């Protein structure tokens, strides 16, 4: 199976796209963030998109939010609204794709699928945007036709900004349909598509939130300012980890890491336990940016940082940091495009802080390579979703930039399991590249700050 239609020839793509005509998409749960964001995306390429919600008013709210998000008049001209009671049955008669974006709850989703099963055309595609539930469980007990046409299509939030998208076939999904949806999403919706297995949190969130949670664990001792400096842009990311958790919301963070922690038993299990201080603060209403406070908050123009031990906030300028001049030296190399030299400085940097940063990066690489073959067919799928879904340097890009020998030495030094293929390449002294996507400019991930 191809993990990426980017390599498909033009004629193969055109043939795939011509195999189905998508005239009408029905979005269920169109008032939620993922619902209206995805619905807006579909209006780009589909003549008719129906926004459905519990009530017509809710659906209208979703449409209004979609118009605001995308700022194109075609969102309105191509859309109609309705509710599940009155309008669903009629909408299903013409739906080529039914896109489900209800609350992340197995029973709620199953309830709506009862109705979809009754009313859908035998050839309609049914996709779910779930980020945590099992695709096979969601369609368990459904008709052959339903299961054959059912798959996960996981857009990241907000869909109009983040293009990385996971495509998760169930065990009975028709492979031709999967190929069609992959081509459609890529060419018509401008998505970067990655196929994953039906595993907890799929690929991107599994690997990404492992790193984010480890940063949250470290913040308990080091404080959020130092952690975000250490795991900062120079390590290969646009946004620092704790600022990312504040942006996505602590509740979402908890839902994802709890799901992974409860349903996996891998070598890095302990890093997926959400720290208790976060649970305590969430009980007091702290959820990140949406509540105005998380690891960071703003007081006018002053940025304040959380003290996890007390729950108090201190102006960032008053927080004393150790000597981090190695970060400036790395950033200076990145700024003139000398990324390998920058990463060499990172690997050679002395002091406890640099060692902590290396341990997190080593953990990221190790965890990703250990998941390859399980959550994606190869490391390429994880690479692509970390790049296009998180805007992080893909694990293979880090290995290639450091060199496999130094990367393995870093992982060993951190006391973390070394992935077998990396160990083998390092001991054989091989110099092949692990990142397998020549169209991606790997330099873009090394932000010079």
């Amino acid at each position, binding site marked *: 199976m191809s993990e990426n239609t980017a390599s498909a020839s033009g004629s193969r793509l055109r043939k795939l796209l011509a195999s189905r005509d998508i005239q009408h998409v029905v979005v269920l749960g169109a008032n939620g963030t993922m619902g209206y964001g995805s619905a807006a995306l579909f209006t*780009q390429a589909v003549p008719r998109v129906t926004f459905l919600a519990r009530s017509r008013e809710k659906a209208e709210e979703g449409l209004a939010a979609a118009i605001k998000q995308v700022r*194109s008049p*075609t969102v309105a001209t*191509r859309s109609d609204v309705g509710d599940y009671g009155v309008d669903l049955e009629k909408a299903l008669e013409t739906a080529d794709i039914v896109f489900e974006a209800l609350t992340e709850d197995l029973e709620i989703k199953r309830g709506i699928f009862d109705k979809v099963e009754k009313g859908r055309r035998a050839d309609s595609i049914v996709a779910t945007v779930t980020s945590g539930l099992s695709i096979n469980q969601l369609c368990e007990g459904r008709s052959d036709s339903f299961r054959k046409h059912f798959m996960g299509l996981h857009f990241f939030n907000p869909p109009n900004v983040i293009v990385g998208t996971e495509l998760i076939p169930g065990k009975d999904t028709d492979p031709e349909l999967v190929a069609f949806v992959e081509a459609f999403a890529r*060419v018509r919706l401008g998505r970067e598509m990655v196929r994953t297995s039906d595993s907890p949190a799929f690929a991107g969130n599994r690997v990404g939130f492992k790193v984010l949670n480890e940063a949250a664990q470290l913040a308990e001792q080091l404080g959020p300012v130092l952690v975000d400096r250490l795991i900062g842009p120079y390590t290969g990311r646009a946004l620092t980890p704790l600022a990312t958790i504040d942006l996505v919301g602590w509740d979402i963070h908890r839902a994802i890491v709890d799901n992974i922690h409860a349903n996996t038993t891998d070598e890095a299990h302990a890093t997926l336990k959400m720290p208790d201080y976060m649970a305590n603060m969430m009980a007091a209403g702290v959820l990140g940016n949406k509540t105005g406070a998380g690891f960071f908050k703003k007081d006018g123009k002053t940025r304040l940082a959380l003290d996890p031990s007390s729950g108090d906030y201190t102006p960032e300028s008053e927080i004393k940091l150790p000597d981090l001049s190695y970060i400036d030296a790395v950033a200076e190399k*990145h*700024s003139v*495009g000398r990324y390998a030299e920058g990463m060499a400085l990172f690997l050679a940097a002395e002091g406890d802080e640099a060692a902590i940063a290396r341990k997190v990066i080593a953990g990221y690489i190790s965890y990703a390579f250990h998941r390859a073959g399980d959550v994606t067919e190869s490391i390429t799928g994880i690479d692509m979703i970390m790049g296009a879904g998180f805007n992080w340097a893909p694990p293979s890009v880090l290995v290639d930039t450091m060199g496999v020998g130094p990367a393995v030495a870093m992982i060993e030094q951190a006391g973390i399991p070394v992935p077998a293929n990396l160990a083998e390449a390092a001991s054989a002294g091989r110099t092949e590249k692990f990142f397998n996507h020549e169209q*991606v400019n790997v330099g873009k991930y090394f932000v010079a700050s």
Partner: protein
Amino acid sequence: MANSEVYVLGGYQTDFARNWTKESKHFSALMRESVLGALQKCDIAPEEIESAHVGNFAAELYCMQGHLGAFFTEVHPAFSGLPTGRHEAACASGSIALLAASAEIEAGRYGLQAVVGIEQMKTVAADKGGDYLGTAAWYDQEAEGIEFPFPKLFGRLGDEYDERYGLKDEYLAEISRLNYDNAKLNPNAQTRTWYMNKEQALCRTDDNPAIGGRIRIADASQVTDGAVCVFLASREYAERYAKGMGKKLSEIPRLKGWGHNTARLRFDDKVAESKGNAYVLPHVRSTITSAWQRAGLEDVNGVDGIETHDCFTTSEYMAIDHFGLTAPGESWKAIEEGWLEIDGQHPINPSGGLIGAGHPVGATGVRQVLDSCLQVTGEAGAYQVEGAKNFQTLNIGGSGTTSVSFVVGVD
């Protein structure tokens, strides 16, 4: 003429969606990635490069930096001491660098040269950038004190068509739609993930605001950071290179023909000169036909596709009849018939062009030649024109002022 053949061994472009200011990077990083990327892609050792030409419009304004040829030597220690230089002709800067390099190859001075087209534009706000671009016109007569002068100049190109032949904006919207659609197939195109469709392009509300007469945002090319590096080689070098790569010389693309004209700077003067001429910009027509002559082609039927300079939809509309796809003034017919689509009879801008792929000013001419190479070697991936053997570029600086065209092909 056999000894004066100029081959294009290949090259590399940076992802035009990147914002190098957001990455906190100096433009030397941009040059470095394009050159090292090209060396790797083409499997050429840095020591092989004998000379370098850099095409750039306005780094002095955007980056407070001149003397760009010298920056080439920063890319690799092997480049220290190489003869380098920088070329400027507004949005045609990249093509002028290619012309200079190819002339040196024809003269027998060098066997292998690097040509880099480069522009970093996102260093300044849109209005300031628009003002800088105004220096590609006669600044104090056509641009000073005018917000976004170039959309207005190219809006007037549309008005001139309207006056002479009639022009419906829906055809301009269709040009925009097609470029955005094609860009979705190009993994280096700036707009490949943007929300766009025909209705959006046709939209005449604040969601698609007017920026210069009939020119709206969707009619315009982008503000882009990007660099492209290609390698030009003599026949002798290309023969060796082909052999080393296990290829036949006939599989290596060649600059089969070129055209180059410069018209008067002010738009009014150009239009006044062309009164009574069937072509609105006769010097552009001459650039296209002289490239055919040098390539031994009769007309546009000799090429399998075109990468043209759609800085605005009106410039592509102009290109359609100037390339002779239709009679003068009838460009709309080619649009209506679907000829310009990737699988149409005269594909234009399969890459997405300047509107879809992006327009880092000094890099565009080089990007067009690189895309043409990818097409004629069957390496264009999802935006491949099936079976293409010859492609033609048209790169324009100013308001139709400096025009350069190359025919790139394999035998």
